[in-house]
């Protein structure tokens, strides 16, 4: 016991070796029945027990080896980093701050040129292979990247930024956020198909409807906190979905609403006809313009969310939200009406969900209850948590990694070469999603960007370490 302190390399390896053996034994015990045996059917349809000792050995060896490497190399290097970190210098801090500013500015610029960048790169690749410039093929090829990656990620960025107001700022755990997304989507889908109203009129209306639903949900649940609030919001999300499924007269149930009008660019439709966008600008007919338009639309909506969030944080209401997250009782003692404060948080968050919903309907041209299952709420919440509650940049990064990463998995056809033809990488999306979340949470328990930026300052703006901020109690 007394020699715990000695940090010679021998003792580290010896300790690591011990831990490795322990991990191996643990793995053996754990996987002995799970991996070592497998029930199967033979030709005569009989149940037989297959023994898989080889596979079990691999599992055990991997566990032991992994533990050894972790204990012998990763832990010592990490403690070294910690010791090195203990001597911080003002210079590195300042560097880090300006670095962050550069990253966010660069990121923003990248977002603005992204579709054209994709076209350019694809054209270059085309040129490299065929030796001739053809922007047209680049434009066609870019469809997938703009739509699947650009728009898809930005929708989640926007949803997560909207939810961030409720969860990250006000500290109210909302598991039913997708309900507001659904309200927005169906508002647009139904009002546009039945009354032929335009997207630009219905976009704000969808937001208002969703905000109203936010208030309706808010009233009964205001007195609930923490787990209770989470469960009730979860139920609310499910109720909305079930209403959409069962109120077939209006919503057409599981068949969904199809043929939803597309959005227009100030009245210019994206149709192949003579009045269409392509014809007006003398461009060849292509579906990609609509996608690029949608890309900029959702980019605008997401940036609007971010702008409003940043502005609101400097308003009394935004500060009240954050104060509410820190300590509700203290808020009340300062004369803050916590009821209305919570309601505005719910309503504002819901409104952005509604905007995103109506955009979603316009993009898909089809909505059905299947798009608004609980898993969506969970993913949005996971993005907020992973990004770091309250941090816009962190959330954007988390959305890019999580949604982009899972989309990327669809592209990994080469994995079929490794695992055989019946391997479908998409099926492992959720598994990897979960694994990635665990890794991030172990590595950065408060998300990618756990630090909080103060909303006002007297001398200088210092980031607030996550160890001081609270997550809220609901």
């Amino acid at each position, binding site marked *: 016991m007394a020699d715990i302190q000695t940090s010679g390399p021998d003792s580290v390896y010896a300790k690591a070796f011990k831990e490795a053996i322990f991990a191996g034994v643990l793995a053996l015990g754990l996987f002995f029945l799970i991996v070592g045996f497998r029930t199967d059917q033979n030709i005569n349809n009989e149940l037989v027990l297959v023994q898989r000792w080889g596979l079990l050995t691999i599992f055990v060896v991997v566990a032991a080896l992994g533990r050894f490497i972790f204990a012998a190399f990763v832990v010592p290097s990490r403690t070294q980093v910690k010791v090195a970190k203990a001597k*911080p210098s003002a210079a590195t801090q300042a560097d880090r701050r300006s670095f962050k500013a550069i990253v966010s500015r660069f990121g923003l610029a990248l977002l603005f040129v992204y579709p054209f960048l994709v076209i350019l790169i694809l054209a270059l690749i085309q040129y490299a292979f065929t030796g001739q410039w053809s922007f047209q093929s680049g434009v066609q090829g870019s469809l997938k990247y703009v739509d699947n990656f650009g728009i898809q990620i930005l929708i989640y960025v926007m949803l997560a930024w909207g939810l961030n107001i409720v969860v990250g700022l006000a500290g109210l755990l909302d598991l039913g956020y997708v309900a507001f997304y659904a309200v927005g989507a169906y508002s647009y889908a139904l009002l546009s198909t039945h009354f032929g109203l335009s997207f630009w009129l219905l976009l704000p209306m969808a937001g208002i409807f969703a905000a109203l639903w936010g208030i309706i949900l808010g009233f009964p649940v205001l007195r609930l906190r923490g787990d209770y609030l989470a469960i009730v919001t979860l139920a609310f999300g499910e109720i909305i979905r079930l209403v959409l499924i069962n109120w077939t007269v209006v919503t057409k149930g599981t068949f969904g609403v199809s043929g939803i009008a597309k959005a227009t660019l100030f009245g210019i439709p994206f149709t192949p006809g003579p009045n269409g966008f392509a014809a007006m600008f003398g461009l060849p007919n292509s579906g990609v313009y609509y996608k690029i338009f949608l890309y900029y639309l959702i980019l605008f909506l997401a940036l609007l969310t971010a702008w409003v969030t940043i502005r609101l944080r400097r308003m009394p209401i935004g500060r009240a939200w954050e104060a509410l997250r820190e300590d509700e009782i203290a808020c009340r003692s300062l004369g803050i009406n916590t009821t209305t404060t919570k309601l505005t948080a719910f309503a504002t968050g819901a409104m952005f969900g509604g905007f995103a919903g109506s955009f979603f309907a316009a993009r898909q041209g089809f909505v059905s209850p299947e798009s608004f299952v609980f898993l969506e709420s969970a993913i949005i919440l996971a993005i907020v948590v992973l990004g770091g509650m309250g941090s816009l940049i962190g959330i954007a990064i988390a959305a890019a990694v999580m949604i982009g990463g899972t989309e990327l998995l669809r592209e990994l056809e080469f994995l079929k070469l490794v695992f055989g033809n019946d391997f479908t990488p998409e099926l492992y999306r959720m598994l990897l999603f979960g694994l990635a979340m665990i890794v991030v949470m172990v590595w950065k328990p408060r998300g990618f960007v756990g630090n909080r930026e103060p909303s006002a300052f007297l001398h200088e703006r210092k980031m607030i370490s996550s*160890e001081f901020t609270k997550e809220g109690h609901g």
Partner: protein
Amino acid sequence: MSQTQPLAKSSPLLSIENVETYYGNIRALSGVSVHADAGEIVTLIGANGAGKSTLMMTIFGMPRARTGRVVFAGQDITQLPTHEIARLRIAQSPEGRRIFPRMTVQENLQMGASLDNLEFYDEDSRKVFDLFPRLKERINQRGGTLSGGEQQMLAIGRALMARPRLLLLDEPSLGLAPLIIKHIFEAIKELNKSTGLTVFLVEQNAFGALKLADRGYVMVNGIVTMSGSSKELLANPEVRAAYLEGGRH
């Protein structure tokens, strides 16, 4: 408790050697060395934010000392998990009370006595109730519903239930009525005398603490700047000016 016979002066019960502790990148303790001999009452005084509570928590490994050693009864406990440190019979009444708010007073005390599987619960709880009759009145009330001062009593009582060899008290007088403070100090002295309990005491009430203790340390900004017998410190003009005078008339 009988095994706590005073050891030779050369081997203190608790010795903290050159400890440095950090919160993130902020250094809270810079090379602190203090010790407590068996059967001694040692106090640590200093302004708020000087690192007194940090030192107390460092003994328990929360946060862990980054450099230096914490030795208890000859055993290096610097890297020991916190629950194992507690099993060595170091008990603590921590800053902020930290009672179990949803458990009753009795259950809280039982938690304190859980090291011995409640073997001595009846006997020890009687002593605690003798010390704090108020707790007996509230025995079936939940900890969270007690008043602040009563919670403080409960925290101290819970620490005593563990039959400690070393008792760490972080501001036991916080929020207590003057009469009760006297009572507690008296009881600490009494326990120390009768059972040889070693006490490590952090107090804002420097006067009371020095009066009670055998020895004292003065801490400023994470460094021990002065140490000596309580009498010396009480007589020291610097200590008097910094910690004893001002509030009193």
